[in-house]
Every structure is written in structure tokens, then in C-alpha cells.
């Protein structure tokens, strides 16, 4: 079972990002983490191969030099091998570009049964790359899986989030399955994992290695500028006994805000 996890590093979700000069001040971000949905995918993938008794997890990450630390964390958690896609031309990709770069890398890796990214990055909140990747690789896809329940006869059975509940779906492999929050908290890397991560293979590929022409990677979706969200207007604190303020709130919501 060869599982490839396209993984992204994102600013720590507990920290508010700053906006400066019309863009997100990413240079101020001190802590970068594995994109939480990718981390859930890693956890579910580790559990899947533990259940199957065999399998290999390969991490593929587009990112700057510093992304290596995040990649090592995934290896410390238990992934077996990693590819770091590093090139100036990969710095300002849109989702189409990212999917193209990932598709080229995955085709070059060659052996895969399951491609299992998070359903979106919690940075730009697009949620496009996984599905586009499936299209570029000519693979079927399943979106927002909670987990992969079974592998049988060359198919995967996944439990997915669907409108009004869940679905259990069956998809022939190879396929792309995107992960939403899973039932299991992602594991901590172990001390042994951290010490062993440096010995695991980590290959760096640039645009040339992937046979990609930087011109083809020009973003179609162009980020013009970024601003802070409009400040919410100063609120009103209702004072008084609980019974009074409760009645006053209901009155305001009905008469002034007209929302009930």
C-alpha cells in the first residue's frame, strides 16, 4: 500500500497573523505547523497501514527551505520518506499551479495507490488542490473523508462528510481522497521518531527535476492585496439582573436587530 500525502506547512493556528503593506506578514510567523487536515491524513494513514500490516507513507511538500523542519516532523510521526519540492518558481503558486507541481512530482515518484491530502490548507482556505490533483492525474477522487475504513479488492472504502450526515463510499484505487478532521487526534512524534527522522530519505526536487516550465506555473488567480477584516463596531454590554438582561436581549434581537 503506497500512500502519498501532499502536505503543506502553515502558520500555527493558535496565533493571529498580521497584515502589513497589503499582504499577510508571513515573515513574522514564528511557529509553522503541519496543515491540520494534512496532519489528520497522516494519522489516519498511519493507522491504516498499521491495520493492514504493510504500507509506506510518502510526504510531498511544496515549500521554502524552512519547510524541511515541518517535513521532519511528519517523518518523526512515522512517515517513511519525503520529497521536498523547492524552487523559486514554486513560491507564488495558485491552486492550479500547486496541483500541477504535485502531479508532476507524484508521476515521477510513480508508485502510488492512494493520494491523501487534507481537504484544504488553513492558510488561504481554498480547498482546491486535492481535487485538481486528481483531475491532472486522471484519478477518481473523494472529498472530505473522515477516515478510510477498508482496503478491499483494489478499492478503498471511506467514510465521508456529506450534507446532513455521512456517506460510506467505495472508490477504485489509485485515487485521491481528501481528509477533513478525523476521529483520532494526530499522534505526537516520539523521541525515537525525532532521532530517527534524520535518517529517513528526503529528496529535494526543483522545477527542472520535474520537467516543469516556470511560465506555465504563473498564477491565474492573482492576489492583489490583503487587508484586515473590518473591525466590528464596539458592542453594547447589557447590565442588570439575569432576568432583566435576558428579556432586554430578546427585545433588542427582535426589535432592533430583527434577527428573531
Amino acid at each position: 500500500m503506497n500512500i502519498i500525502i501532499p502536505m503543506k506547512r502553515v502558520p500555527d493556528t493558535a496565533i493571529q497573523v498580521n497584515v502589513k503593506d497589503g499582504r499577510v506578514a508571513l515573515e513574522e510567523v514564528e511557529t509553522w505547523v503541519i496543515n491540520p487536515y494534512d496532519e489528520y491524513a497522516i494519522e489516519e494513514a498511519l493507522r491504516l497501514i498499521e491495520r493492514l500490516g504493510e504500507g509506506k507513507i510518502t510526504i510531498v511538500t511544496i515549500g521554502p527551505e524552512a519547510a524541511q523542519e515541518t517535513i521532519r516532523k511528519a517523518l518523526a510521526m512515522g512517515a517513511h520518506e519525503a520529497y521536498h519540492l523547492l524552487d523559486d518558481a514554486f513560491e507564488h503558486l495558485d491552486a492550479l499551479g500547486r496541483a500541477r507541481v504535485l502531479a508532476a512530482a507524484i508521476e515521477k515518484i510513480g508508485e502510488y495507490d492512494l493520494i491523501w491530502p487534507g481537504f484544504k490548507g488553513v492558510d488561504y482556505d481554498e480547498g482546491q488542490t486535492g481535487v485538481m490533483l486528481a483531475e491532472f492525474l486522471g484519478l477518481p477522487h473523494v472529498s472530505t473523508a473522515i477516515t478510510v475504513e477498508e482496503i478491499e479488492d483494489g478499492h478503498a472504502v471511506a467514510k465521508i462528510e456529506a450534507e446532513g450526515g455521512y456517506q460510506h463510499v467505495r472508490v477504485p484505487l489509485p485515487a485521491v481522497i481528501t481528509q477533513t478532521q478525523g476521529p483520532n487526534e494526530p499522534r505526537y512524534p516520539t523521541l525515537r521518531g525525532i532521532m530517527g527522522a534524520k535518517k529517513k530519505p528526503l529528496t529535494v526536487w526543483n522545477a527542472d527535476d520535474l520537467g516543469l516550465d516556470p511560465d506555465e506555473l504563473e498564477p491565474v488567480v492573482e492576489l492583489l492585496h490583503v487587508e484586515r477584516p473590518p473591525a466590528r463596531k464596539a458592542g453594547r454590554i447589557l447590565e442588570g439582573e439575569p432576568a432583566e438582561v435576558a428579556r432586554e436581549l430578546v427585545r433588542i434581537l427582535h426589535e432592533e436587530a430583527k434577527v428573531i
Partner: protein
Amino acid sequence: MADLALVVAEQQDGKLKKITYEMLTAARQVADELDTEVGVIVLGDGLDADALAADLGARGADVVFVGDDPALGSYAAEAYSTVIQRLVEDEEPTLVLFGMTPMGRDLAPCVAAKVNGGLASDITGLRVEDGELVITRPIFSGQAIATVRVKRPPVLATVRPNTWSAAQPAGDDEADVETLDVDDLPENAVHVLSVEAKESERPELTEASIIVAGGRGLQGPENFHLIEELADLLGAAVGTTRAVVDAGWRPYEEQVGQTGKTVSPQLYIAIGISGAIQHVSGMRTSRYIVAINKDPEAPIFKIADYGIVGDLFKVVPELIQAVKEYKAANQ
């Protein structure tokens, strides 16, 4: 010939969903400046094209593209994206809107890859500047707002629910009907084996117009009946925070915030929620925010329109009582 703004409708049992009308409003708002018609594509099985044309026409659509086939009976990425790809290639629309819904978020990138088009996700603003579409969308879970441009048509976008008002029927204009080619649709590789419906009768979190959310201040899962009772009285969805989900008090489906759902209801009532950035970024675009917390310094009060500083175990029961009285008086 780029003279069409296209809305990809969502329907269930032939009935159009609210998001379709919201997208119609968004498309209509830019169509005049762009000098385009507004078209709606409806895919399904056994659709009533005339009824759709009447309904959508009255709400401002010029043309309805109907794709009717058993293969389109329920959403399937391959078949749906193929029909839309054909239409996009034939009509070369300026703009194609999808809902930021379970269907739209899956379908839109699929179409974008097929037509090699630029897709802006989860948009909350759409305007025309110098004849060009300019899009705004929250990024970093709403911690920042990005303005983006798609450099070449078609401009593809998924539209955040509850952001535009739903187009209302006005007059009795009927939209033209065009029947789409649904031959040779690819078979879907993904098969649904079974469906688990959610037990709750409450509305979907992302679609609810009112959300009642409880945080760690509730002190334990046993106290969430307060949240549920208030939510049910208001016809609201129940939301919660990551801390609560991590503690195992409530299911992940109810989590609002950066690693949960992003919501923008008309009214968000945050109870016992301090307002960590993780959470706030998922709900700050709500129209009205009410906060109930005993800590006057809680950051949630900085974004709340109405705040009550007090013990939620005293305030919420009173609030439930007050809503009951209000409902009794207004029946």
C-alpha cells in the same frame, strides 16, 4: 462571445436550494455592469424545466440550462463536471458561480482543472472595477481579507452561503430554457454504499441563520442541554469550540473555527466562549454576535454586538424563559 454570468444551481428533489438564489443575486449584481446575461445551470433527473424557468426568471435569470438525465440524479463529480465543462466551452461565460457547499467545493475545482480556469474559493464580495471582476474572500479563516483577480475568463468562484440575500420573485418574466447535451456522460467511479443521516433535526451549521454556541464555560457535556434547548427554541444550529471538541464533550461536526466550520449566520450567540482566535476567525463575519461570559476581559466581548457579563448558568435559563415568553406573546 463572453456575455454570460453563470450560476451552478443546487437542487434537491427538483427544488432549488437557497444558495442558488443567493448566487443569482450575486450574479445579477455584476451582470449589468459586465453587460452579460445571467444563466442558471440546473442538473438533475426528472426536472420540471418550465417551473424552473418561471421561478428563476421571476428572480432575475435570463436563461436556464437544464441537464436532465438519470446520471445526474444525484451529485456525481465526473458527470456534473463534464456537463459544465461542455457548457463552459460552448458559451465561454465570463463568470461561473458555485456554492461553497459540500457539492460546490467538490465540483468547482474539478471544473476548474478541466477548463484550466482560475477559481476563487469561498468568496464574500464581487464587484466590477474598470470592466473587470474583483473578488474579495476571507483568508486565514477570516483573519484577513484578500482581494483577488482571475486573470483570464472564465472567472470561477465558490460563493459563501448567507452572504448575499436570496433573489426574490419579482414580476413574471420567464427565463429561456436551453436543454443541455447529456450524452455519453462518464460513469462515476465513486459508489455510495450507505448513508448515515445525522440524528439531529437542527439546521446545518453552515446554512443556519441562527447559531447558539457553547464553550468550555459550560464546564461539562452534561450542561449542553442549555445550549440545545435555546437553539431548539430559536430554530438554531448548535456550535462549539475546538477546546470542547478536543475534550470530547461535543462532536466535531459542531466545531466552529479554523479547523472546524466557517459560519456567517444572522445571529451568533456565544455562551461561555472566551473568544480564542481559533474560534473567532470562524464566526466573525456573523451579522450579529451576542456574547455571554463571566469574564469581562474575555476577547469575545471585543467583537460582540451585545454582551452580557455574568454567570451563564444564571443568564441562559433566564434567556430561555424570555424567548419562551416572547414566542408565546407573538403567536
